[in-house]
C-alpha cells in the first residue's frame, strides 16, 4: 500500500488488509481520501468513513491501465493524478463489492482453478480454450498471474458479504 499526499487529499494505492485500509481512514479524519478498494465492500467503507470521497479498482489493471472509478465527491486533481500515472479512469455508478471487472474476472479465474483441480484440462489448454473459443483477450491463468492474492481476498469478502457459497475460493488460491 502506498499513499500520495496532496494538501488535504490522500490517494491510496495498492493492496492491503481491510484493517490497514481502515486505519488510514481513521487516522486522517480531516483529509479527503480516494482509495483503491478493489477487494473490499465499498458500501461498508463509505458508511463508516465520511472522509472516503472516492474509490477505484487498480489492482486488476492490465497494460492499458483502464480502471473503474466511483467518486462520491468529484476532484479533478485526483483524476488528473490518476491520468498522470498512466491510468485511464472509467466512471461507474456501481458501488458493488469488487466493482464490475474485478468481480467478474475473479469468478472466471476461480472456476478455471476448479476445472484445473479436477483435471479437466491443463492451464495452457484452459487459457487457449477461453481465448480461441470465446475470444477472451486473455486466458484465466494469464489474468490471474501475480494477482492470486487479490482474487482470493475479493472472493472471501464476497462470500462473507453474501453468504453465497458460489464465492468459495478454490483451495489453490488459499
Amino acid at each position: 500500500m502506498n499513499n500520495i499526499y496532496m494538501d488535504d487529499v490522500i490517494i491510496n494505492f495498492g493492496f492491503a488488509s481491510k484493517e490497514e485500509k481502515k486505519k488510514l481512514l481513521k487516522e486522517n479524519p480531516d483529509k479527503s481520501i480516494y482509495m483503491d478498494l478493489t477487494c473490499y465492500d465499498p458500501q461498508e467503507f463509505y458508511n463508516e468513513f465520511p472522509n472516503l470521497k472516492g474509490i477505484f479498482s487498480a489492482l486488476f489493471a492490465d497494460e492499458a491501465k483502464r480502471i473503474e472509478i466511483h467518486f462520491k465527491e468529484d476532484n479533478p486533481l485526483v483524476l488528473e493524478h490518476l491520468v498522470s500515472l498512466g491510468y485511464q479512469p472509467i466512471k461507474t455508478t456501481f458501488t458493488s463489492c469488487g466493482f464490475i471487472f474485478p468481480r467478474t474476472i475473479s469468478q472466471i479465474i476461480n472456476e478455471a482453478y476448479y476445472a484445473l483441480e479436477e483435471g479437466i484440462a491443463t492451464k495452457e489448454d484452459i487459457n487457449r480454450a477461453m481465448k480461441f473459443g470465446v475470444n477472451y483477450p486473455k486466458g484465466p491463468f494469464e489474468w490471474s498471474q501475480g494477482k492470486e492474492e487479490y482474487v482470493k481476498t475479493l472472493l472471501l469478502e464476497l462470500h462473507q458479504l453474501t453468504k453465497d457459497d458460489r464465492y468459495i475460493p478454490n483451495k489453490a488460491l488459499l
Partner: protein
Amino acid sequence: MNINKVLVIGAGTMGSGIAWWFSSLGVQVHLVDASPDQLERAKKYCTDQTYRWATKNNLDQSLTQSLLEIISYISKEEMDNDYDLVIEAIIENLEVKKSLFKELDQKMKPETVIASNTSSFPIDLMGEAISNERKKNFLGLHFFNPAPVMKLVEIISSTHTDKTLAEDLYHWFESKGKVPAHCKDSPGFIVNRVARNFYGEPLRIAETDDEKKFKEIDQVLKEVGGFRMGPFELMDLIGVDVNYSVTCSVWEAYNKNPRFAPHHLQEKLVKEKRLGRKTKKGFYQYE
C-alpha cells in the same frame, strides 16, 4: 494422421460450418441431413462461403469449382462406409444421438473415427451406444460458432478413447490452423463451464431488470476487461433461452453447485419471452 474423407451429420449452423471448413482444406466432405430444405440451405451457405474465400485468396475458376464439388449434400441412405472421420452435429437429444451412433458403428469401417460435436452430453454416456471395439475411436470434437472462424476445437476424450488418437487429432487440427485443447469428459467441457461466470456474475451485479445497468456493465467489461462483447448483449445475441438452458444444464450436471446457479433474471426474461435479438427484446430493446 490422414483425414481425406469426412462425413458431417446435421446440416444446421454448426454442421454446415464444420463441413465447409473441412472442404476449404481440400478434404472430401459428405454432408448429411434428413431435411432436403436444410441441405439446400447448407449448400447455399457453403457455396457462398467458397466464393467469398476464393475471391479473398485469388483462386482461379477451376480451383474454385473443385472446392465447390468437394462437398456432397446427401441423404442418410447415400452415406458411404469408408470415412476417415464422422462428426455428428445433430440436435441435442441424447436418445436420438445414441441411436445414430449405434447405426454408424454398425455401418462404418472399423478404422473410422466417430466424433460428436455435442456441447452438453457426456461422451461416455453417448458411447454406451458404441461397440467395445469402436469405443477407442469415439470422442468429442467440439467446434465453436462460427466454425470456419473460431479456432478452438475441444478434443474430449472419454474413458475409452485411444490417447494416441486424441493426440494425433490435436496435431492434425493444429497443423490445419485450428487451436485444439484437450479436455476430460465433464459437463460443459472447458468453455461452457468456465464462461458461465461471464454471465452469472454480471447478472448478480445488476441484480434488477434495468437496461441502464446492463449497458453500464457491458461497457465496463468491454473497456476495462477488453472483452469484444458485454455479457448482456452477448446473451441477447445467443438467445436468453439458449443461455439459460446451458446454465441450467451445467448446474444440474454439477449437482446444483451454487457456482453454476442460474439467476432469477434469466428465468424472468424467458418467462416473459424476452429471448434477445430474435424476439426484438431481451436485456435490451431492439427496433
